[in-house]
């Protein structure tokens, strides 16, 4: 694939490992990343049935600290960070005054007045500049782009807990979903978070960049009996889509509001003023005109990002993500449609390279892991 810009691609601390392991590498958000190791479908299935390991060190880490750090985080993110205990994380949005997405992110409360924001790789510089500008009114709080201090490894799948536990003193069985703990993994200082972007149980492990390769190999070694395999961004995308998780830049961006993206659960409606609050309150009162839906294609093919949606022969919406899922074996996707056409069962057409293809609105997520 061609790189669109002249800027050299950034490399994660695991880049040499990916290349040595024969992964297929592609440019992604300014980074040289593995898109595929043994095959997308194979990797996807490994995560659904066993476990897979992902290098997600390209993600950005922005820390906010200071006496008024909570007030700063409350101002710039949509969710209610006051609900977070130390050791707990939440999904949230960085919003424009219009209630649309600068980015989506995870907010970790490291200490009462110290937060870690994990943001999308392609948005790190933009987010950091935006955060720094928007927290000045909040009082005593500073933002630091700490991205280069962390490597991030995701271990995802039903076997993840069994594979990781022998390597760490952090008690994983008592670590609840969206909580994290500090300790060591394979004798390396680590923060272990029970989070992920696949719809499976699993962990995201923050380690110092210089030790990333050691942790990566230790996890693969520990997972050998369970046939844990390395996975690329291709499987990460099909897994997150099956789980109904939005991708910034595809499904949500600065043109889509939180309510249109059907994510009102990440808005702290009761908290004080925050970026986008008045726009969202207004939109909540008047109702959205369009909304994101999950859909299934009734015909063959894949409706991809950017395909137009038609209702009764007229252009009515836009597909934001689409794939054929390796696990459920259906052609699925997300699209924005006029709100009166978003009930499950509603049928519409997607223009796939000039070919009208029938689709049907279905509830999300497309896949829910067995409890």
């Amino acid at each position, binding site marked *: 694939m061609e790189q669109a810009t002249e800027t050299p691609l950034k490399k994660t601390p695991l880049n040499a490992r990916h290349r040595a392991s024969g992964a297929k590498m592609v440019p992604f958000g300014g980074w040289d990343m593995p898109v595929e190791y043994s095959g997308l479908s194979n990797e996807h299935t490994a995560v659904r049935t066993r476990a897979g390991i992902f290098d997600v060190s390209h993600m950005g880490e922005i820390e906010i600290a200071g006496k008024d750090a909570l007030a700063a985080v409350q101002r710039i993110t949509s969710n209610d960070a006051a609900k977070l205990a130390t050791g707990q994380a939440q999904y949230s949005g960085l919003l424009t005054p219009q209630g649309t997405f600068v980015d989506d992110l995870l907010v970790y409360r490291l200490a009462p007045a110290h937060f870690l924001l994990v943001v999308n790789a392609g948005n790190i510089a933009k987010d950091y500049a935006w955060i720094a500008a928007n927290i000045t009114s909040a009082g005593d709080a500073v933002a630091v782009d700490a991205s280069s201090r962390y490597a991030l490894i995701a271990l995802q799948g039903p076997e993840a807990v069994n594979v990781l536990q022998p390597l760490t003193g952090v008690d994983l069985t008592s670590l609840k979903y969206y909580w994290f703990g500090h300790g060591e993994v394979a004798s390396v200082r680590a923060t272990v978070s029970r989070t992920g972007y696949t719809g499976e149980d699993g962990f995201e492990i923050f380690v110092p960049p210089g030790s990333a390769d050691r942790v990566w190999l230790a996890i693969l070694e520990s997972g050998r009996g369970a046939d844990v395999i390395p996975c690329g961004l*291709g499987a990460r995308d099909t897994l997150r889509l099956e789980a109904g998780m939005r991708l910034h830049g595809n499904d949500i961006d600065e043109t889509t509001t939180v309510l249109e993206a059907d994510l009102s659960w990440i808005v702290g409606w009761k908290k004080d003023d925050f970026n986008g609050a008045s726009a969202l309150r207004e939109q909540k009162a008047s109702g959205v005109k369009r909304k994101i839906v999950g859909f299934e294609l009734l015909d063959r093919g894949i409706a991809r990002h950017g395909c137009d949606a038609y209702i009764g022969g007229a252009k009515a919406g836009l597909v934001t993500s689409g794939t*054929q899922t390796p696990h459920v074996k259906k052609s699925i996707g997300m699209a924005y449609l006029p709100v009166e056409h978003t009930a499950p069962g509603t049928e519409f057409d997607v223009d796939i390279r000039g*070919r009208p293809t029938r689709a049907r609105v279905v509830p999300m997520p497309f896949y829910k892991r067995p409890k």
Partner: protein
Amino acid sequence: MASYPAGFKYTKDHEWIELSGDRGKIGITDYAQQQLGDVVYIELPEIGAKLKQGQSFGTIESVKAVSELYSPVTGEVIEINAALKDKPETVNKDPHGNWMVVIKLTNAGETGALLDAAQYQALIK
């Protein structure tokens, strides 16, 4: 290792053609299906379509990407493998056994420029 039939000719765009008189069966190579991954849709031309060498005769869509299919030769489409419409994944299982179209060649001289199996395998090394 995949075997590339010695009786086929190949293109740099990873199609194969099995020539028989003035007719050629056309498909994609094992290397191409590996690169594409799971094939989910194949769009083929109408019978009677006239193609120039190197012209697109259809599209093949995998989970990863959509790619054009290019004709190795100039001629007219006289048969299409309609079974691929409902079972496109058979191209992954047996790429050299599942042809897509049969073309009646109108410029047989062109085939000299195609690659033989050894040249093609050197290309994908």
